[in-house]
């Protein structure tokens, strides 16, 4: 079931510097939001390999055509669209829908994308 009723406004698009990420807190949950040339993406901020809340500080880019963020701790890549880890399919982070309306950024923290 797709649940789209929990959109939360987290700030203006211009608060996000192109090519970087930032952490947001939605209902107590830490989420990393990334601004790329291909749009905005949101993943769990928690890096499952280090157990630290740091994915928002990772570098974004593409690997073999997939948009990714590299964990700043041990450098595993997570797909920005799905949250899958490219190096280890045992680990996956949650991804979240992001929307822009009138220059404002909305993230849906529902469990399903």
């Amino acid at each position, binding site marked *: 079931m797709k649940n789209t009723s929990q959109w939360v406004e*987290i700030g203006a698009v211009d608060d*996000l*510097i192109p090519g970087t990420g*930032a*952490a*947001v*807190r939605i209902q107590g949950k830490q989420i990393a939001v990334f601004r790329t040339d291909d749009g905005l993406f949101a993943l769990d901020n928690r890096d499952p390999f280090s157990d630290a809340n740091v994915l928002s500080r990772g570098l974004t880019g593409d690997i073999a055509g997939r*948009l*990714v963020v590299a964990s700043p*701790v041990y450098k595993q890549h997570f797909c920005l669209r799905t949250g899958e880890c490219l190096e280890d399919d045992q680990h996956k982070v949650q991804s979240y829908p992001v929307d822009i309306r009138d220059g404002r950024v909305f993230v849906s923290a529902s469990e399903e994308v």
Partner: protein
Amino acid sequence: MSKRQLLVIGNGMVGQRFLEELVDLEHDFQVTVFCEESRPAYDRVQLSAWFSGATAEDLALGSVEFFEQHGIRFLCDEAVVSIDRDARVATGSKGSSFPYDVLVLATGSYPFVPPIAGSDRDACHVYRTIEDLEAIRASAASSRRGVVIGGGLLGLEAAKALKDLGLDTHVVEFAPRLMAVQLDATGGEMLRSKISALGVTVHTGKATQRIEDGSKHRHRLVFAEDELETDLVLFSAGIRPRDQLARDCGIEVGERGGVVVDDQCRTSDPAIFAIGEVALWQNRTYGLVAPGYDMARKLAAQLCGDTGALFTGADMSTKLKLLGVEVGSIGMAQGGAPDYRVCAIEDASSGVYKKLVLSEDGKRLLGAVLVGDTSDYDTLLQYTLNALDLPESPISLIAPASGDKPMLGVDALPATAQICSCNNVSKGDICGAISAGCTTIGALKKDTRASSTCGGCATLVKQVLDAELKTQGIEINNDLCEHFAYTRQGLYHLVRVNSIRSFAELLTLYGRGKGCEICKPAVASILASCWNDYVLDPRHVGLQDTNDNFLANLQKDGSYSVVPRVPGGEITPDKLLVLAQVAQKYDLYTKITGGQRIDLFGARVDQLPAIWRDLVDAGFESGHAYGKSLRTVKSCVGSSWCRYGVQDSVSMAIYIEERYRGLRSPHKLKMAVSGCTRECAEAQSKDVGIIATEQGWNLYVCGNGGMRPRHAELFASDLDDQTLIRYIDRFLMFYIQTADRLQRTSVWRDNLEGGLAYLQDVVINDSLGIADELEVQMQSVIDTYVCEWKRTIEDPEALKRFRPFLNDDQPDEQIIYVRERGQKRPARADEKLEKSADVLLETV
């Protein structure tokens, strides 16, 4: 049937090579090796490298693992004291008996010490084993001057060692010229003047009569007419075969020593063989390693049934660099054939002497002498070894570089041409290895052993490799990553030449895709090295790696550590107090670093600006501990305080640290300055190490600690302040321009074709004509330095990124600490789970 017993007496370079050759073949021996020294075989050819940084491990050739792997019984610290040839039993120095079927003498030689009264005084040494080197170093610590007795090849090597130890170095030679065996009179004279110019005093035609107490120095060497005082004496007056064991058991030895062997390396006892420096073949011994290796190879083959493997003599050509002076000697360097012709060039102004010894008809090259420039050595050696027809005008082979110099391309060499004479590797061997997949110099060295002993043929091997790869159509991929089909060096030049100021621009023009965590920080570093823009500028901030991203060092729990710059490790009590107060105020775990600074751990990203505001207000600057950039310049207190210091190392360290602070480079850079040869700042473990001498500074480069420690190598000696700085400017900029991403200076140096000598040529002699440019580029980085933290705390836009959450100012609640030894540390997972909230310490 029980295995035949093979005893190998001696585990030097040749003894070890024999074992390696043997285990490569199918043999049925139970092998026992006697090694008199306390460690398995090591590379004596590279002995002087020990003084410029190589460790005993670096020099090691044999290893306990090797012996174990091949079921060889290795007896360390044990010699053989006697051989009973009738019973075929050898007796070891620990009293045990060892029956044998076959015995191989590889006992090598010992340094000859002339019978001079006083030669057994303290601080009188020989130069043969690592133990000798340790003793020399120990004596050198209390010495100012050192004298090498013997001006041959080894003696000059030893002189380099003394010079590297910072001693006022003299060479005393009995003959009227240096390197009397390899050079002719003119060559010897040329070498002498070049070496003298380097600060080594040469005394020829002097016989030392006795050594007695000196008045200004420890010893006085008394000659026929005059005398010379010195603190340390190093005998290097030739070597003698260690044939005592053979003599004692009645095996035939030569009149002047050496165990007589035939083409099979067999002695007068058919069960006993001799190889290496102890063997006397056709009434001559060989003091070079290549002939010994050849004997080892032939004997191993023979013992495994190849009766055709005979030793047929060896080429004694040699090319080396003595005290930085290139010297080469090929074949009959001094003539010697019944009829021969000579052509030579001599240029006293540049100190170059080249002589060709030609056959009577002028068609063949019999020998050559090269001093000051050995660039023609490889070509000339090929003409001699392969008896190639000389060009019409042989002098053109050694004439100063001009467009019409006849080129002997590697393509012209037959497959049988010997490329590496130390290890008898032919062009065909190398091409075969390339076909089998060795496409790098490193792989070729490992597979064929080419260029792995003296390294003299490295250029030639590389040429063969390049030519062969081209022929075979093999391409090597050096792309930085999938987004840029360029090396880091290539990208650097594109950025520099096209004045590219942003990643986006470079990607559009020369890349594809979006970039990744490999190319983005690499390009960010290149942009910073070239233009030194603010790294958190919106154009660059998305490129910075983990630590540069927030100008601090990310720790395992997502918090950061902070390292303010403490130039040279010198800090006032007031500033120390500030660090303590800041640490207290923000409850930071405090630790002293190895680089003489203080590291403050456990700062959350949102605390960093406030911490730095306090630090900047107190006069601190960013320490760039987070960057691939200059970290610290460590120093000892030097002449200001120390009884032994000869220069002001602290002032120099501070000057250098402030000069290069903030310089972005392919990898982190560490430096140190020691105020005297005792080297308390450990400069020889740094990328740039500076050690004070009486006359100025010795510059060492390309060392590092870490996972693969590496000693720095002496780059230039006795520099004044200005020259020192100039060389460092050039060295660093050249490294920044040409190194690969995340390549430390040591690895970079190893991959430079020509290695250290090439680097010296570029930096010292400006062989590429880029020195001025490098200095200008460095000056531009220095002139545009701004403390990144000072700039950041004054920039409201940059500070926005340090908010803990875009939509919330509460810090990360999952960064949790516990107390240990009076300070905080990150809670472990089990502690986070087990302990209830009240024992957890929330930092506010």
